[in-house]
């Protein structure tokens, strides 16, 4: 087992994330493009966009100015977020891959990506949040992975976040995974006790909520995925 990442070893990997982009801003609406994971049904799965006035952080403890359920079931699309009252202040829009959560989880704990609107006259920041799986290291009977670029103040553990691994080239909202683990750290986690075959392709996905320790965790809140060939 090498200590180098799969990318450093020149192995094929595919990284998928949930993306949100603000394409235009007016005094009372935003145009938003979103691109989620393959197979997602944003309306059915309760995906939503949420707006706060804030600096470039998702203020999980603060009630938002507005939120809106994605109206369509296309994996990627655009919408007009209307009925707003936007002034020269800075705003942040988060994309949640599931509905609001109940206490003690963070209400909008399904937010995994965001786009920032700087105060008028301020430069556009480059560091939007876009939760991602990185540093995947397969062993013979375990795989470890890292997480990066999720909102800084998210509590993945408290929100019931979990990760799944399939022996396939893409993640699934329905197919039961080989193994599932609860995420207890915002930095990453590991699957143990699974045999990783030579030359086979595996996909890891992270879900922002819905972990069930007895099995059959909710597979609708997929935020990011990583496919590798061992």
């Amino acid at each position, binding site marked *: *087992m090498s200590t180098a990442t799969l990318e450093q070893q020149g192995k094929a990997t595919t990284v998928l994330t949930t993306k949100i982009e603000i394409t235009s801003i007016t005094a009372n609406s935003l145009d938003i493009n979103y691109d989620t994971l393959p197979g997602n049904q944003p309306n059915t799965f309760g995906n939503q966009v949420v707006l706060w006035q804030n600096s470039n952080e998702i203020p999980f403890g603060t009630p938002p100015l507005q939120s809106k359920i994605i109206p369509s079931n296309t994996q990627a699309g655009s919408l007009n977020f209307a009925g707003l009252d936007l002034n020269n202040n800075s705003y942040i829009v988060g994309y949640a891959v599931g509905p609001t959560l109940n206490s003690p989880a963070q209400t909008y704990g399904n937010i995994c990506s965001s786009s920032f609107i700087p105060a008028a006259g301020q430069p556009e920041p480059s560091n939007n949040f876009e939760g991602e799986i990185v540093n995947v290291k397969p062993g013979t009977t375990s795989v*470890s992975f890292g997480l990066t670029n999720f909102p800084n103040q998210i509590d993945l553990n408290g929100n019931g976040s979990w990760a799944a691994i399939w022996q396939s080239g893409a993640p699934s909202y329905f197919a039961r995974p080989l193994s599932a683990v609860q995420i207890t750290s915002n930095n*990453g986690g*590991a699957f143990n006790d699974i045999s990783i075959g030579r030359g086979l392709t595996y996909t890891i996905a992270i879900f922002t909520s819905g972990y069930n320790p007895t099995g059959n965790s909710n597979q609708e809140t997929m935020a990011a995925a990583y496919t590798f060939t061992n």
Partner: protein
Amino acid sequence: MVLNFKYFLTSGLYDSCIKKITSISIAILFLCLSNRSSHLFAHNSISNTNIPTLKTHLPLAIALGAAKLNTCKIEITGYTGQSITVAFSGLPANQPSTYKNFIAIWEASVIPWTVTPLRTIEIGVNTEDGTVTIDNLTITYNSYIVGYGVGPGIGNICASAILNAGGTKAPLSYVNIGIANLGQTSLSVHYQTLSGYLPKENGNWIGLWEGYISPYNLPPDALIKKEIDSYANQGVIGLNNLSLGRDTEYTLIYFMGADNTTAAAILTFNTSDPTSEK
């Protein structure tokens, strides 16, 4: 021109030239051959003197190259600020999950045997070799040690690996056995366990069987079983009153606890016929 040419072809001069050339070439050939033969002799003399010295250093009664040692191992293959990945390697035919093998980690440079580990992970697969990632840790710049247990208790740990302060890795450590002496009716076995380990307290024992034996499918008729009657982590244990046959395979196994699935090292060897070696 014609005269000159005839002069060159006169038999006397031509013959003498040929004679000189042949004698010189014979001399050169002789020199070459004698050089070569001296090299050959030198080579032979070196190897002739080497063979007996090799023989005297070998234990006479154990066949050359027949001893084979299998041990357990654990190695740190990677780490991050919050996790350590280890590769474990057990004895042939081990079933880590069924036999309750585990990996434990401490923030120390030697296993603190009386201290509860930071984390313990039971191995959930039945493969001899495998990897385990221990997460939910905060890996500081201190030293960490991981241990591989071949049974349910901390006293069953038979291999360890260190992540040194600063990130370098130390040599691996594991339970090891070897033959110190093979007498007519006795066998002295050298054993070595991990630093600070107490073999007697943990009920370590050693057994000898005829043939190639698996500790996970032991025949009931051991030639001898003997508990380690010492708290020292390494030493020599004598197996007396044996009757070992000539040119026969034997298996010596070291156990970390009463249960035969806690085997930590297997040494197979062949008693050669001393007369055939002479």
